[in-house]
């Protein structure tokens, strides 16, 4: 699996997923409000958005698990409607919730799942052993699911999604709820798959995850795509290069505030924090000696800044 040459991903023209004016409402409540996007073979596309943005609904429509409410959705060149057996045959899905089969052992989870795809037994066995090695669960092959940690379960879910050699891997928040170690292991595995040329579509609200893995990011909010581009491109377009954070607990805060406001390209307040965004890192650096006595944090702009800038800072529950 890893031995395959790296595919040229960005210049591939083959469109695996094509959505135009895609809409979905649950009873009367609209969740996805007309979105357009493409996923091409070989690329990794990330849906970023706060809770309730419509990310999971969107990918569930691709998985044929939520019916298309309106607009167009084509997967592998086929319109999605009802039990799209031929589409599902070519997809690998890692759901957000754990839905491993608790009645079966680790190995049997893979074998039984492979059988749903009609794969022959020898093929399933060989592939299952390969995948257990890939996700580092060989020693757990005969264990029951309830004895696995959260990270192990997620890795097994990933292995399960790969049993049929899917052309498109769909991951709904693949590292949510994992501790940092487990999360990094999942990322490692996903990077390895990306190098092997696997097309991936993932949702996440970890900005770091999107920045590390995705060639392109679509930021969703309230059922719409509000920004799209490469992680670096989005940062440059919406934030700039660097950020200086200032805390208002500082007694001479107002002087510093004035200085920051004068120098930064854009200033934003949130609670006891003030953020100064700089397009050019030289301007940020020039300000630092002046602010030396104040409590400031100077850092590079991240996707999280873009995200918060675009989706606002109110809590989403």
């Amino acid at each position, binding site marked *: 699996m890893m031995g395959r040459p790296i595919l040229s991903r960005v210049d591939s023209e083959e469109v695996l997923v094509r959505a135009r004016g895609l809409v979905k409402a*649950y009873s009367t409540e609209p969740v996805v409000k007309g979105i357009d996007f493409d996923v091409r073979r070989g690329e990794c596309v990330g849906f970023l958005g706060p809770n309730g943005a419509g990310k999971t609904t969107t990918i569930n429509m691709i*998985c*044929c*698990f*939520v*019916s298309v409410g309106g607009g167009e959705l084509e997967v592998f060149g086929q319109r999605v409607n009802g*039990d799209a*057996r*031929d589409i*599902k*045959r070519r*997809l690998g*899905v890692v*759901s957000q*919730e*754990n*839905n*491993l*089969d*608790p*009645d*079966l052992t680790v190995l*049997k989870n893979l074998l*039984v*799942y492979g*059988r*749903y*795809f*009609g794969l022959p037994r020898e093929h399933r066995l060989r592939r299952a052993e390969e995948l257990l090695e890939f996700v580092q669960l060989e020693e757990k092959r005969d264990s029951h699911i309830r004895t696995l940690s959260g990270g192990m379960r997620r890795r097994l879910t990933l292995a399960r999604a790969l049993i*049929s050699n899917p052309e498109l891997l769909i991951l709904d928040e693949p590292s949510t709820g994992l501790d940092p170690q487990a999360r990094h292991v999942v990322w490692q595995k996903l990077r390895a798959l990306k190098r092997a040329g696997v097309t991936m579509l993932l949702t996440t609200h970890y900005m770091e995850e999107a920045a590390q893995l995705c060639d392109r990011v679509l930021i969703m909010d309230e059922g719409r795509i509000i920004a799209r581009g490469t992680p670096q491109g989005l940062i440059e377009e919406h934030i700039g290069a660097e950020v200086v954070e200032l805390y208002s607990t500082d007694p001479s805060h107002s002087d510093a505030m004035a200085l920051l406001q004068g120098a930064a390209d854009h200033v934003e307040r949130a609670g006891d924090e003030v953020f100064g965004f700089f397009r050019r890192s030289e301007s940020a650096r020039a300000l630092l000696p002046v602010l030396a006595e104040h409590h400031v944090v100077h850092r590079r702009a991240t996707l999280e800044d873009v995200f918060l800038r675009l989706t606002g800072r109110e809590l989403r529950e």
Partner: protein
Amino acid sequence: MTQLTTRVAGAFRVWLRNFESWKDFAVASLVGTVAEPLLFFAAMGFGLGRFVDEIQGQPYVAFLAPGLVASTAMNAASFETTFGSFTRMNEQRTYEAIVMTPISVGEVVAGDILWAASKSLLAGAVILAFMLPLGLLAGPLAAAVLPLTFAVGIMFGALGMAYTAIAPSYTFFNYFFTLVIGVMFLFSGVFFPLDGLPSWVGWAAWFLPLTHAVILMRALTSGTLEPSMWVNGAWLAAFTLAAFWLSVRLIRRRLIR
């Protein structure tokens, strides 16, 4: 339109999943499915049977046994597609995982119902195995009890599945088991013939699916099958088709939003 063979293969893969998770606990599961009807068989057939003269020209135990095969098939299948399927659908999210593969909702439902019917068949076969040495089987026609037991399992499996699709929680199965399964267990002619009762009872019992299953079971074990009984067979077939159609529709509505 997907080919029938693809659909049958899909349902069978779901059946195999259930078999695979069951076989490690087969003994414990069998005791639950089989022991209870056998205890009934012994207690009612021989205990109560000593005080009852013949019913319809046969000893009480011979009258009771085929009824118990039918009611056991009903219970085994009903438990499987209510508590079992509800757990797989809602607690374990197994249905969700399966329908994201090439398997359809209809195949998941059919696979679970066929699994429920297999448990009915197994339990029915055990009772039949006790009836044989006791001389309670009149002739070779009694072998047809096995496919009939399987068919009764499919019918009640489908009925349980349709109820599961609309049940908000486990507690709601109390209604089903008391008001539907419980009523049928007692008033479908398993323990006493319905013809001696006020006519409206027999009339009402005609609407209970178990009644028709019991009539056919008894005809097969006692060798009294009559051509007119095609009506009972047709009744069962029609009810089974309706329940299956309804269960697929309702489960799809619950699963795919």
